């Protein structure tokens, strides 16, 4: 252990420090990270690479795969947009207004993080089914929510709800009221102040929150499969198609779809990092 620490220090990978344990903690972290995360994921990458371009392309452009990806990304996008509007609203009332039960509401926002997805799934399915509380209300209007893509959107709204609130809230708390007062003294009305002064500063946080909710929504499984109805080509999400391919022992199919989703999620992660770096440069916070 001392050898590696010395070698690391000599190679100037880290700055010298009197604190011990660099080799031990970094070594353990990297070993654990490799065993649990990196090796299994590279297994997936290797498996995809050994598949051959033709086979991969055939699976990737298969009608059912494309529809499943479209359903996953489309519903996650719509749910993300809904959560942007209401997430900003919820963050706003939590930061700006004082009302009874504010702290309770603040804690309750995290419920989707804490509630197991399968539990959320069966609860939403029961609520929005044609004989459920909400489902029976909208049924006379000819509206069907459960077992349609609309049901998937409802589940993803639930799952994504805390993301925008929790990314926007801390940034909103740091807004200096002087900028708003300045805007007001310069003759801006409240709406103009919010739109031209406050929103631009909140935009990076809103985009980050949207991206996080979107990424979560694309991969979400537990809360969706109960309410979706899982009709191929219509309300079948990509993660479910992976499970179906696995159950058919069609490992190549499952692997190819997973790789496509992974590439897109990494791209999302990259974009989130860019947004945060950009916002740090421009606004001094992420």
């Amino acid at each position, binding site marked *: 252990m001392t050898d590696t620490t010395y070698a690391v220090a000599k190679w100037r990978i880290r700055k010298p420090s009197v604190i011990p344990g660099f080799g031990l903690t970094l070594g353990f972290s990297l070993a654990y990270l490799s065993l649990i995360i990196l090796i299994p994921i590279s297994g997936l990458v290797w498996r995809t690479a050994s598949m051959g371009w033709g086979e991969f392309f055939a699976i990737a452009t298969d009608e059912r795969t494309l529809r499943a990806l479209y359903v996953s990304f489309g519903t996650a996008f719509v749910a993300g947009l809904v959560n942007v509007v209401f997430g900003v609203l919820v963050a706003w009332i939590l930061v700006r207004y004082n009302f009874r039960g504010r702290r309770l509401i603040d804690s309750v926002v995290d419920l989707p993080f804490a509630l197991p997805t399968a539990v959320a799934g069966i609860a939403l399915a029961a609520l929005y089914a044609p004989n459920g509380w909400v489902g029976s209300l909208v049924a006379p209007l000819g509206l069907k929510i459960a077992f349609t893509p609309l049901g998937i959107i409802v589940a993803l709204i639930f799952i994504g709800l805390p993301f925008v609130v929790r990314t926007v809230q801390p940034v909103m708390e740091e807004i200096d009221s002087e900028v708003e007062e300045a805007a007001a003294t310069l003759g801006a009305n409240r709406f103009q102040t919010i739109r031209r002064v406050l929103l631009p500063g909140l935009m990076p946080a809103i985009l980050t929150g949207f991206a996080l909710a979107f990424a979560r929504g694309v991969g979400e499984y537990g809360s969706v499969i109960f309410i979706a109805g899982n009709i191929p080509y219509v309300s079948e999400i990509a993660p479910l198609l992976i499970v179906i391919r696995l159950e058919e022992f069609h*490992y190549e199919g499952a692997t190819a779809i997973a790789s496509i989703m*992974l590439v897109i999620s990494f791209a999302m992660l990259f974009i989130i990092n860019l947004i945060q770096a950009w916002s740090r440069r421009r606004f001094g916070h992420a």
Partner: protein
Amino acid sequence: MHDNARSPAASARKPETFRDAASETPFVRHLLIFAALAYLAFFLLLPLVSIFVEAFRRGAGAYFDALIEPDALAAIRLTLLVAAIAVPLNLVFGVAAAWAIAKFEFKGKAFLITLIDLPFSISPVISGLVYVLLFGSQSVLGPLLKSHGIEILFAVPGIVLATVFVTFPFVARELIPLMQDQGTGDEEAALSLGASGWQTFWRVTLPNIKWGLLYGVLLCNARAMGEFGAVSVVSGHIRGLTNTMPLHVEILYNEYNFVAAFAVATLLALLALVTLVLKAVLERRFGAEIAASRKH
């Protein structure tokens, strides 16, 4: 109609807790609060309430019968066992990673933090799939281990691995910003006074991070006990053997045994509520000591 409420005269008559030019009229304020609360009630509260209503639809007897049924008890035991293995593993990793990242400056640190966050951006189903590819019957490793009598997939080790994967970042990402904020001054002081490395960790660092650590463990545990997608892929759904509570809920639901499904679901919902309460308590009482971790 409430336009003049913004004028100084109006606010002088009606004292307000909030500043004037930089706030909305009371009418707009109430409207916004109402809209936000309605949204939360509809999308958060209603599903939560419905779990308990559905579970008690046939009375308390049916509810408790569903909980003491052998398969349900086996699922509860397995869930506790998996969390009891996965959470300490990720706790040790979280502390080690946070120590390396927060107390030292080295190249590739930002990249390492990104890698630690990786499981959050991967679909749970894919988290399970990677282990199926690694240990399945079509892999190199699977048949080899099987010939030595080691079962990973469709057995408890696979469930533990998948759970460790999805809960991997929780403790680390709470501790890293917290320990970065705290710097290295305390540790350097302890070391200069003659404490050993381990003494410094146990007596100086650990007391500094204990509430942040607890916070991370709390969130890690909630996810570990509630994980569905990843575990569902690797478990094989063998009743009484490899079914965790969320998987048991799914099976019961798919068998149209709704009361039993929701009965088991109430236990998980209670876990979520307890988690939220403890989380709120930690944030309120020790906010400063976990504050760094709330800025995500």
